């Protein structure tokens, strides 16, 4: 590397180099005057006061939640969907570091970052949803409710968020120029990956296990003793599909950041992930059918809920599985990306079905989220996107840091 690269910025230049992208504060602020930044600013300008209102006046004033419907879209979208879509972190890390599928190496970092931010903002949604959010650390440090499934969920989310952060630290240290710390963290890669797989398997399924307690409230078409398995398998598909969507968008939006090495073939990565996602989705479809048969609830299929259930398992599981297989076979990458987006939507719909739409299905009127709930959810998602962009624009996420890059031998 050149002498310039070897020189770390002085402490005085840290803000300019690392935060303001080498620009003066005024130039940096001017660079933010774009239409997308205006949209983000508008959402945050409306959303942050809504969140303040929720904490100032409580859940009763800000939401349509009640004693009979204590979980709404903050749990359905921010928590359950966010955690499922973050599963790409452990899926891709395991594929690369444990199975040795080096082809996927270029997408490990974005997948881990997506996973970490997914968990971080899922916890943000959870904080909004909890009646006493300041008690969040209690099950971790103070009172172990070892007979509660929530105990397992809390510990797994806490531990896996920590693991994801540690997996992300080599990127952070490259950005900061801390070579020794980076080397130390890289030595932990295999251990962290194994821990990530174990913890994800445990808690993706334990999120589903939460609903085992809700048998009387959950519509029989969605209730099944297999629901922990459903959550885990669908999270694997959601993670892979989210990585396909995220990598396609990142390479379009952050064109100047993408890996300059020509051997990085995103199309090939997309086809490989789609093939795996299609096969898992196909198996997942039959597991869902098995659960339906086992529950003996098929007599409810010719109802409105039955039609919605069929739409979910046919439209969001079987059809994408077939399209994934066809697209992977024929190499239609654009079709695969659209299918990935559709599958991501399908997983969100599934989590909403289980936690909101099919929950308390006998109640009338059924829960509908308040405007503040919807704005808060949009704000949390926007904050996640802005944070992702902020990090990608500064740290070596979509490409290897030139000083540490390992190019193929000539």
């Amino acid at each position, binding site marked *: *590397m*050149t*002498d*310039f*690269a070897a*020189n770390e*910025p002085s402490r005085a230049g840290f803000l*300019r*180099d690392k935060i303001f*992208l*080498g620009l003066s504060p005024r130039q940096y602020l001017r660079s933010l005057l774009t239409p997308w930044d205006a949209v983000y600013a508008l959402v945050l300008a409306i959303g942050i006061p809504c969140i303040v209102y929720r904490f100032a006046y409580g859940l009763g004033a800000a939401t349509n939640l009640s004693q009979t419907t204590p979980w709404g879209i903050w749990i359905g979208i921010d928590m359950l969907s966010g955690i499922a879509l973050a599963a790409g972190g452990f899926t891709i890390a395991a594929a690369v570091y444990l199975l040795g599928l080096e082809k996927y190496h270029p997408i490990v970092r974005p997948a881990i970052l997506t996973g970490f931010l997914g968990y971080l903002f899922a916890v943000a949604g959870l904080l909004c949803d909890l009646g006493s959010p300041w008690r969040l650390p209690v099950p971790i440090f103070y009172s172990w409710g070892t007979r509660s499934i929530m105990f397992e969920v809390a510990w797994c989310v806490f531990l896996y968020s920590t693991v994801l952060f540690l997996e992300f630290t080599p990127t952070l240290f490259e950005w900061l120029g801390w070579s020794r710390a980076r080397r130390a963290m890289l030595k932990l890669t295999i251990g962290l990956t194994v821990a990530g797989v174990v913890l994800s398997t445990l808690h993706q399924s334990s999120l589903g296990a939460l609903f085992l307690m809700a048998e009387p409230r959950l519509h029989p078409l969605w209730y099944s003793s297999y629901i922990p398995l459903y959550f885990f398998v669908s999270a694997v598909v959601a993670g892979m599909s989210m990585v396909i969507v995220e990598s396609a968008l990142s390479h379009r939006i952050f064109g*100047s950041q993408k890996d*300059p*090495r*020509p*051997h990085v*073939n995103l*199309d*090939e990565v997309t*086809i490989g992930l789609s*093939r795996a996602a*299609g*096969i898992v989705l*196909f*198996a997942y479809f*039959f597991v869902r*059918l*098995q659960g339906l*048969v*086992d529950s*003996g*609830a*098929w*007599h409810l299929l010719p109802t409105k809920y039955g039609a919605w259930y069929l739409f979910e398992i046919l439209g969001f599981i079987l059809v994408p*599985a077939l399209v*994934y*297989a*066809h697209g*992977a*076979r*024929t*190499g239609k990458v654009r079709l695969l990306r659209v299918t990935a987006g559709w599958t991501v939507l399908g997983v969100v719909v599934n989590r909403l079905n289980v936690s909101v739409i099919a929950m308390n299905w006998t109640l009338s009127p059924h829960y509908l989220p308040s405007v503040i709930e919807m704005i808060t959810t949009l704000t949390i998602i926007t904050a996640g996107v802005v944070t992702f962009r902020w990090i990608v624009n500064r740290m070596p996420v979509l490409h290897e*840091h*030139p*000083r540490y*890059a390992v*190019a*193929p*031998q*000539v």
Partner: protein
Amino acid sequence: MSPNDPYIVKAAEYLLGIAFLLLFVPFWRYATGGVTAAARQPRRVRLPLLDMFHVPAGIALHPGHAWARLSATGEATLGMDDFARQLVGPLKAIHAPAIGSRVVQGQPAWTLKADSRTVNMLSPVTGEIVALNDEELRAPGANHDETYGRWLMKVRSPRLDVDAKQLLADRSARQFLGSSWEELSAMLTPELGTIMHDGGTPVNGFARGIDEGQWDTVARRFLRS
């Protein structure tokens, strides 16, 4: 037929299990078969490695195949690397912004002109243009001295140390050129590859060798513009 009759439920479960096994095998074969992304690409041709992989000390490359020689005084000398020259072939002219204009790293800095088409090249650094090599801009390649002596512009920047982190030097630069060469090999037809096994290069440049009608599109792919 009651959905809670255990015989019915068990029969349905077994049937479903058998159906899954029968359908999963053909589904697997269908999904994992077909054309792979690698196979969709043309047959690979290994081209002989050329001298272009020599990158002198002090020279850093941008992924868009522009080079920069950075000085400690905050001035950078910019040019296009040998790969870019061989890719586009002979040029009519190179259009560059006037002295005093600002170029931004990763943004178009100068334009290569050949026949009626033009291709932009990206700036390796951010800064203000303080000098232009008019001779090279008017008649690119007329002066046949070594590549890294054929500069196009000089840029003054207060943030060269930041820009340098996005550039490739020494071993990384050689490997980058090597992998670019590998990718180029994969795009060439076997016939064209054979022609060049004597170590020569196409008279009109590799991009034209790959696709005469769309050579500028091919060039943009490698020059990332």
